[in-house]
């Protein structure tokens, strides 16, 4: 069976568990700083080290951020209870994790992806993060290391775990979902959205089934997915692996698997038999959480525009008959550059060009791009649209605008891109016509081949400062 008919026969089913660290000043249950990149074991106290006698006290801001996420996902904000999830692990100071179990704060919800598909949300609950273990010596892998070091700075950092329904059907859709979710988390101010720093982490539940089947196949949970790329590759790998097992007459074993980015494959981490029995029970050191409906409504009414609404807003601003550049829309919204685009359109910029420059060039440095002055960006788009700067020139100017935040005129001048004053261009064209009367005559008689020659002469006359489009337009305008 070839790959095509195989993919026609089998369908991938994916549900994702996305863990997002919340942007609080302090940890979930104590006043130790929630900060990334500090010296090991400096952001700790008796509570987050789980010292005997210490007790947790819930961080109110973490609850507010969790509710913001819930309202953004369209969840029901429910009275909730913290539970202890018991298992031994050296980077977990109490050897239990305070999490939420059967009464989570956010129940249900949905995420609409840019392509219009919808992924259901089962729940989004609050829990604490663990510390980090580094294995030292040997090859640095768990089983050959000489010893392990534990950094508890991350222990107790607030997380929201967002569990999706098994509604995802491809690696591409999984990436799109995580992108969209990340954009929602950033928009609500709940997360910085940085996958590379581990502030968003993903586990994937992957199964396959025959297309058209109504029940699900046996799933495997894949861990250690720390980029969108690994997420996509791991889902594709798991799909191939499980299809191969099923096609050879075998059956998939439910287990937890580890993604090895270098090898490009998954391997067994824990079998079903070795799975932890977490012995959940209600955390007696905390009281049940029952946010008032007033506080939930206050948070809801304070929510910023969410990515799907922001894409809609830009679509309206584009207002043309041409097809909507969906990818560019998604990019600028995901990176938070849509405000810049919208503002520049409001200031009179060409909407498609503004969108393109934001999605293609500004997007390479989103942090800097978000700090661009809309007036500067608008001016840049105007210079390019009017032909005063060529596309190449405009991109160079934009790159420097991102670095220096200076105005496009100033940068263009410094780079020598300064558009010729119309008079200067006219003078240059006059002198080219005077110097090449034959070519000018042939051009006037409709010989287009000679236009390139004339344009080249103008460029030479202006030492390359003229904009090609502007020259061509001017030459055409003078043609008799």
């Amino acid at each position, binding site marked *: 069976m070839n790959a095509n008919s195989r993919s026609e026969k089998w369908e991938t089913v994916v549900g994702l568990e996305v863990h997002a660290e919340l942007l609080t000043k302090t940890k979930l249950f104590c006043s130790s700083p929630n900060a990334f990149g500090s010296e090991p074991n400096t952001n700790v106290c*008796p509570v987050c*080290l*789980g*010292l*005997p*006698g*210490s*007790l*947790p*006290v*819930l961080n109110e801001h973490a609850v507010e951020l969790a509710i913001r996420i819930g309202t953004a996902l369209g969840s029901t904000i429910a009275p909730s209870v913290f539970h*202890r999830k*018991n298992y*031994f692990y*050296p980077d977990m*100071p*109490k*050897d*239990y994790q305070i999490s939420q179990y059967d009464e989570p704060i956010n129940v249900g919800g949905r995420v609409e992806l840019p392509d219009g598909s919808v992924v259901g949300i089962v729940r989004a609950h609050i829990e604490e993060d663990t510390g980090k273990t580094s294995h030292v010596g040997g090859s640095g892998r768990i089983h050959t290391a000489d010893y*392990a070091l*534990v950094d508890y700075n991350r222990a107790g950092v607030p997380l929201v775990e967002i569990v999706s329904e098994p509604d995802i059907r491809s690696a591409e859709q999984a990436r799109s979902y995580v992108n969209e979710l990340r954009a929602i988390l950033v928009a609500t101010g709940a997360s910085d959205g940085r996958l590379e720093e581990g502030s968003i982490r993903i586990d994937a539940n992957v199964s396959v089934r025959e297309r058209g089947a109504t029940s699900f196949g046996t799933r495997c949970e894949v861990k250690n997915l720390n980029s969108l790329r690994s997420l996509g590759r791991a889902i594709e790998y798991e799909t191939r692996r499980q299809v191969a097992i099923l096609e050879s007459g075998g059956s998939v074993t439910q287990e937890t698997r580890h993604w090895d980015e270098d090898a490009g494959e998954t391997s067994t981490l824990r079998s079903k038999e070795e799975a932890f*029995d977490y*012995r*959940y*029970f209600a955390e*007696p*050191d*905390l*009281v049940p959480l029952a946010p008032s409906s007033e506080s939930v409504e206050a948070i809801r009414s304070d929510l910023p525009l969410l990515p799907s609404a922001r894409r809609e807003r830009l679509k309206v601003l584009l207002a043309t008959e041409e097809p909507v550049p969906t990818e560019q829309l998604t990019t600028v919204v995901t990176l938070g550059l849509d405000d810049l685009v919208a503002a520049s359109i409001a200031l009179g910029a060409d909407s498609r060009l503004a969108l393109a420059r934001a999605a293609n060039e500004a997007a390479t440095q989103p942090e800097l791009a978000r700090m661009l002055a809309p007036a500067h960006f608008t001016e840049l788009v105007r210079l390019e649209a009017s032909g005063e700067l060529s596309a190449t020139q405009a991109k160079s100017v934009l790159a420097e605008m991102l670095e220096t935040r200076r105005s496009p005129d100033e940068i263009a001048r410094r780079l020598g891109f300064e558009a010729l004053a119309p008079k200067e261009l006219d003078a240059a064209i006059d002198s080219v016509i005077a110097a090449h009367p034959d070519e000018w005559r042939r051009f006037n008689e409709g010989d287009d081949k000679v236009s390139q020659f004339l344009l080249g002469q103008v460029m030479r006359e202006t030492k390359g400062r003229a904009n090609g489009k502007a020259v061509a337009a001017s030459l055409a305008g003078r043609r008799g």
Partner: protein
Amino acid sequence: MSPDPRSEFPSAVETASLVRSGERSARAVIESTLERIARFEAELHCFNLVTDVDALSAADAVDALVAAGKDPGPLAGVPVALKDNMCTRSIPTTAGSRILEGWIPPYDATVVSALRAGGAIVVGKTNLDEFAMGSSTENSAFGTTRNPWDLGRVPGGSSGGSAAAVAAGLATVALGSDTGGSIRQPSALCGVVGVKPTYGLVSRYGLIAFASSLDQIGPIATTVADAATLLEVIAVHDPADSTSLNVTRSRWSTDLAEGIEGLRVGVIEDFLADAAPGCQSGVRAAAEALASAGAKVEEVAVPSLMLGLSAYYLIAPAEASSNLARYDGVRYGLRVEAPDTAEMNSRTRAAGFGPEVKRRIMLGTYVLSAGYYDAYYAQAQRVRTLVARGFAEAYESFDVLLSPTTPSAAFPIGEKSNDPIAMYLSDLFTIPSNLAGHPAVSVPFALDQGLPIGVQVLAPALGESTMFRVAAAVERAADPMARGPIEPRAKTNS
């Protein structure tokens, strides 16, 4: 008749008054307590650690405040013994376990700060059953504490060191912790007053957890007035404990004289049948005394209370199995090296925990396990609700309830140490208050064959004021020879 030996032991209220007025220095108080500890500690073994140097410098600080005309606090200069499961900054805290031997907390429990603010002076950390699991103090990794009324008998537990220390005058007052009776039962067996306050009244921050939903710190003293005064000092709202109640500070000690006329007292008849004759007759005598003091006394059946014990022995071990997981050899305390982490965890815990702690961890792990949770843990929680409901119904007709504190007086060392169920039954009458989160106090009332027996006064949540008033009335009717402090004695002279 020999003179009352207690005359040489001023109460906490008297001591504080002498120190505050400058009639007696805190240093002199502490020195005499330390002398008495030096004299009797070897035979009693109340303490895991005597903090003599710190106590003397704290006494000097109190004296300096008095000299400067500043308020040294309501317990100025009062020697207090601290159960060794309450964290003390820079002072070892063991919870009676090898697994924490040598661990030095970097912080004080909230009660320790409150005691200091009240002028009390910690003289040492008292012995206990390991992690407060036991009713005899025989489960300590650091030796058995002996009952000053009969050195061959147990002081009760788990706060046996604290109760014995107060009974023998090695401290004027003490703090214990009570999860299923661990303050009241040893207090009854040692002839002292022991209070389990309303859950949430005293902060648990810095108390090494046994069963978080049941644990509560409380006072042990020789008089009801001392116990009430000590509770006033430690019952502070604590934002570091999410279960700490935010209630107005009470003045229970000043309510004691109010009398009990018209109060409705219910004698729990379900408990009487299971009590030794001496304990039964003690409660009946106390009930009569309350009636003659103007209370309306009746017997009342509260059958659901008898279900408490079995629910308790599912809930408490379940919470304990989780609370004690952190003793894994990774961060502090004992570590037994091994080739990999799981094996290190396992060897450390095998070597560090005693048999009773292991029994409860296994029991608790089992009842929380997938497939057993509903049958055991969830069922026990339903029973807990039934117990609370039983109390609620009884308190519709009564202001307080009365019962024996324990089924019997102090038993000989070793008698129940190989029979866990017999040992667990020691807490039959005390457990229901923990399950409901209610306050209860044990008051020494009479001697039974030369050993003290306690009468328990139970009250609804935050009913401390009424509870203390009734306790004071019981105390007034009690045999004065049935309470400490006493000179430790080798044998019962019955």
